[in-house]
């Protein structure tokens, strides 16, 4: 076995490098530069948007070529990994600073880096710049060959050397594009439409009349106030749970829900069995109680609701924190869990809590509480705890969360570490797996590759200490969560801890609390939470840093990334200042330029401008759940076929099951197109005739028209029909079209065309269809075919982009 200590310095260096590269590769922050080449002292507008469309002074004074080419394509992704204060090349005179690590001093860091590069570029070794010699591995470069002479990166450095030394740079001009302010020429959504989008998206309802009036009067300011109200509504918290389940997937843990509570520690986890109506009955007597019997129906409902509550607990923690405006850092620090009257029975603490429940029969009323340190069934202590309580650490110690991401003898809690990074620090450690020359040979060469082989150590030095923090939650048979490994924690893994801090022995009993406390202080936490809310509101994750430096549109795409990143960081800062109140993030993002983008005033002709604007706009295909809620809000009754428990359409329409299918589909396939057609046909079928049978003032769809108004029956009739169409466009599509709008005209022509076709077709009945136009068992009269024509119109509108997308 190779001596581990021999590698200690190298390990430290690699660990430091990884920490740096995590920050760099995953772009926790990225410098924003938008200055003209050669104009180092000029004042340029910042790209960073804000609520007030900030056009403040320039942020940096570094030329474009250095910022966009040298730094973006070579420096930050190649040199910085070693040439930093803690890196492999920390003793080199070519030391760089990471502008992404210190948002407030980016400009200074960039200036420093430019000077460092310029010094290296102008220092000659023979007839060639030291910069160009080192990068190809000459002059004893510690990193050996980093770039090949024919690589794009080398060519960029070569040009930089020419520029620095005042010799002709034969490369193509890069400064012919004068980037406008980022949102220049971009139209923003009207406050009224923003209001509708927000209430539908977050509260599953249309705006009220008073809210619309407030927005008419105060514009965007009113939206801000209304958001406060929206975020108190129960529907918002249902949406929040659904959204955080998309992120955490805790609903999808294996086995029955109460399996989160181990047999060994929770004697009462199957408490419902005492209520089994068949309990104690013989086989003959049991036959008297089939599952269709009301007692059995009630019993199975009880079990179902207990299980639903059990799976929901982690998400209830999220909603409790947000609803009560507690610091969202509690998702990793909360010294409590959420329990319902049913789940508390599973934990065996119902009797202690019964007085705290408003309704002890409500399976979904959740309250915060602590559970005692775990004991075995025989009453012996299973978990040491000086406080006597289970050391809760928000989701980190949640049975459900840990069961969703179980450990095994081979992954040794590393899956949990991966999810920890992803969920709480916004880092996908599997995103950019570093390639090694021969992974199999490394595995064979070292006895403990993860501690000895530098290619492995670079990640495991960071991951494995955290895995060790979960060491007491190591039940590998799926029959529980808590329990240390029988043979003791692995000695062939780095010691438990975080970054370079080892877990003190006296903190072992509360190791996850120790982790949570440090996570809450990590600046990446706030950024990660803003990214989560971004995902909730936009239906997609923020842009990733650019990979291909040969992409001719690299700079434009990078700018799009940077502007978005700046906005996320701006909001992260506000979030932290607001004591991690997640509502602040929702409010800031909803009012951000990114969320309000609605269109273009003029077409972007320059391909670089097009690339910059390529991703802007919400433009999100509604999920099955969102579509169902929208249908309910607009038609007053749910459709159900997309989300019911037995629905086969949910997965077909791009939904998830939190287990095997975990990513929502964002582009409609032909199968989804078919479901859209079924939905539009069926919703129109179920609602149009029904609406016409109501008092006009109670109608959602047709409050101002009757079936006897026929197109072509004179100007009044046509005007009335157009007004009815305007109402439908507003109600269903959220579009405030005038009566002479081309889209209104198109819908009118559709309606009139159908009526005309019917008139010209022989054998058409004067009564509505059996399948769709019956109300209370009676087919409605349809003398002019207008009922069926309106049904066609509603079908047409429900197939529109404005309806199916947000």
């Amino acid at each position, binding site marked *: 076995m190779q001596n581990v200590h021999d590698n200690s310095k190298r390990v430290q260096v690699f660990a430091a490098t990884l920490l740096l590269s995590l920050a760099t590769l995953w772009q926790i922050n990225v410098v924003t530069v938008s200055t003209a080449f050669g104009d180092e002292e000029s004042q340029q507008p910042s790209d960073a948007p804000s609520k007030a469309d900030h056009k403040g002074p320039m942020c940096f004074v570094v030329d474009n070529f250095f910022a966009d080419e040298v730094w973006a394509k070579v420096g930050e992704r190649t040199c910085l990994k070693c040439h930093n204060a803690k890196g492999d090349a920390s003793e080199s005179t070519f030391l760089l600073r990471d502008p992404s690590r210190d948002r407030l001093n980016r400009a200074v860091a960039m200036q420093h880096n430019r000077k460092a590069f310029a010094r290296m570029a102008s220092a000659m070794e023979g007839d060639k710049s030291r910069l160009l010699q080192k990068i190809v591995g000459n002059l004893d470069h510690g990193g050996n060959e980093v770039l090949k002479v024919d690589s794009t990166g080398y060519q960029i450095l070569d040009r930089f050397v020419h520029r620095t030394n005042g010799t002709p740079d034969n490369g193509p001009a890069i400064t012919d594009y004068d980037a406008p302010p980022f949102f220049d020429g971009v139209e923003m959504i009207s406050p009224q439409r923003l209001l509708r989008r927000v209430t539908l998206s977050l509260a599953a309802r249309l705006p009220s009349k008073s809210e619309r009036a407030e927005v008419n009067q105060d514009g965007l300011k009113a939206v801000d106030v209304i958001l406060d109200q929206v975020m108190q509504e129960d529907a918002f918290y249902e949406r929040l749970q659904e959204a955080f389940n998309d992120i955490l997937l805790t609903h999808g843990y294996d086995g029955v829900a109460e399996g989160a509570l181990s047999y060994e520690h929770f004697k009462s986890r199957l408490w419902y069995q005492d209520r089994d109506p068949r309990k104690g009955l013989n086989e003959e007597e049991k036959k008297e109680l089939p599952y269709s019997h009301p007692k059995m129906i009630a019993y199975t409902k009880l079990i179902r609701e207990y299980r639903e509550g059990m799976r929901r607990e982690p998400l209830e923690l999220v909603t409790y924190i947000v609803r009560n405006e507690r610091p969202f850092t509690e998702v990793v620090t909360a010294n409590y869990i959420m329990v319902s009257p049913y789940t508390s029975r599973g934990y065996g603490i119902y009797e202690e809590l019964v007085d705290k429940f408003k309704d002890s029969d409500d399976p979904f009323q959740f309250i915060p509480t602590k559970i005692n340190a775990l004991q075995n069934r025989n009453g012996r202590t299973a978990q040491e705890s000086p406080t006597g309580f289970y050391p809760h650490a928000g989701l980190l110690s949640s049975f459900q969360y840990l069961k969703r991401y179980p450990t095994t003898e081979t992954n040794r809690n590393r899956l949990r570490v991966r999810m920890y990074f992803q969920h709480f620090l916004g880092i996908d450690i599997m995103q950019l797996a570093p390639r090694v020359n021969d992974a199999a040979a490394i595995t064979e060469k070292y006895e403990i590759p993860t501690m000895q082989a530098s290619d492995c150590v670079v990640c495991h030095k960071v991951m494995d200490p955290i895995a060790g923090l979960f060491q007491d939650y190591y039940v590998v048979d799926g029959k529980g969560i808590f329990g240390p490994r029988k043979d003791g924690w692995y000695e062939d893994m780095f010691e438990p801890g975080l970054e370079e801090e080892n877990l003190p022995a006296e903190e072992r009993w509360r190791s996850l609390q120790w982790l949570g406390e440090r996570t809450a202080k990590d600046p990446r936490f706030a950024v990660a939470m803003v990214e989560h809310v971004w995902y909730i509101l936009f239906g997609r994750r923020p842009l990733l840093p650019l990979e291909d430096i040969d992409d001719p549109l690299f700079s434009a795409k990078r700018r799009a990334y940077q502007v978005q990143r700046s906005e996320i960081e701006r909001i992260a800062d506000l979030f932290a200042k607001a004591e991690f109140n997640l509502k602040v993030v929702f409010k800031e993002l909803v009012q951000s330029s990114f969320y309000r983008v609605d269109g273009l005033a003029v077409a972007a002709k320059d391909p670089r401008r097009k690339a910059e604007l390529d991703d802007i706009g919400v433009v999100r295909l509604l999920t099955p759940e969102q579509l169902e809620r929208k249908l309910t809000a607009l038609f007053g009754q749910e459709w159900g076929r997309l989300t019911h428990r037995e629905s086969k359409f949910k997965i077909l329409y791009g939904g998830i099951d939190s287990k095997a299918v975990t990513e929502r589909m964002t582009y409609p*396939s*032909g199968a989804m197109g078919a479901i859209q057609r079924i939905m539009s046909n069926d919703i129109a079928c179920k609602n149009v005739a029904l609406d016409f049978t109501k008092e006009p003032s109670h109608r959602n769809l047709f409050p101002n028209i009757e079936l006897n108004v026929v197109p072509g029956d004179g100007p009044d009739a046509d005007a009335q029909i157009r007004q009815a169409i305007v109402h439908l466009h507003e109600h269903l599509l959220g579009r405030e079209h005038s009566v002479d709008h081309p889209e209104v005209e198109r819908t009118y022509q559709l309606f009139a065309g159908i009526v005309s076709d019917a008139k010209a077709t022989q054998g058409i009945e004067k009564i509505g269809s059996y399948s769709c136009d019956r109300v209370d068992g009676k087919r409605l009269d349809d003398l002019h075919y207008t009922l069926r024509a309106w049904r066609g119109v509603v079908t047409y509108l429900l197939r529109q982009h404005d309806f199916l997308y947000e």
Partner: protein
Amino acid sequence: MQRRDFLKLCGSAGLGLAAPVGLSPISRVEAASADSSNYDGPYYVVFNASGGWDTTYLMDPKGINEMNRLYKEGDILTQGQHRLAPNAAHIESGMSNENFFKKFGDDLLVLNGLDYSVNNHSPCSRYMATGKLDSLAYPTFAALIAACQGADAPLAFLTFGNYSSTGNLVPMARVPYLNSLNKLANADAVNGVARSRYHDDFVIDRIESALQEQMNARVSQVRLSRVERSQSMLYAAQLNSKALERVTPYVPKSSPKERLSRQADIALASFKAGVCVSANLNIGTFDSHANNDVDQMKLLPELLAGVDYLIKRSEELQIREKLVIVIQSEMGRTPKYNKNNGKDHWSIGSVMFMGHGIQGNRVLGATDEKQFLVPIDPKTLLIDEDGGIRVRPEHIHSELRILAGIEDHKFSKQFPLKVPDQERLTDLWG
């Protein structure tokens, strides 16, 4: 506006349109059947053994150095050029290696000694599916070929799991149940019953015409790129969905119980109906960290039985000659057993191919007695320990693109693999 012109204008979305509108429903179906959107092959199927298969129990047998407890080196069988691990005596169901190679050896191309480069599931799955290790943006081969050759097919890219990124080129379709296809096939009929339609035919035609006019009008409007793309995709999805009517005749009346067979039935019905270009078929979990031999002896025969089923059914549907089949996993298993009788992740593995344009009865590449990769000369494809290259997924994907004739397609160029000419496996397909 002519359909061709309209397709051109919508081209920026990377999606085309299928069935022409303005015809009666009956003639529309007939027209759709004759339309170019009726994709006629080749059809691409990627079988994925999710979790990491043990290649030494299949196409790269060893039997030495205690690598395999179920057989010794001397037990290794041959079938044509293939060497295979014997397993008929150790399996309870599925298809044995013996039967598989006997039946398909002449069609089968095996490449041993594939370097996955890393040994974690997530990056390896991505790498094997796309040919690109360090990018989350690249489409899988199955998605890419669907986008290039049949984006106007309603289920162009079917997936049943595994890494399925589309590069935003084509929608992926998940169809988990066979009978779902029947339900979707009659979207304009109440409860899918063809004789009971929601609207009279002329109403449907009017609706489709209005939607088409709207789409035509939008083409000239100034729109956000995302809006432009999504409107085109939505329109294509709805319009192309009509072609699902063609699937119904090919949906088997009963569904087999085996996982891969069910997936294969959905894929084959969709291929035959001309509504699908490629399908990711997937079974797990091969990740046999404990009791390797038990797991692999259960799963490998299940995998091979799935391939067998697909081919058998494709013969019945008369499309076998149009299939291109890739059989892969995201990693191999270590040469040694761990203390749980399992095998851990190994970054060297194998891949198998068969079908349209692929010469079978060939074995390329190799691993040595310790299951390390042996380099090959990319031109001769022969072992070249000193001057050869390590074959990696990008080499395979580069050739797959050529096999499919899409290497110069704009979508392929959008996601370059950058394999140097001197490393191209020019004769991979024979």
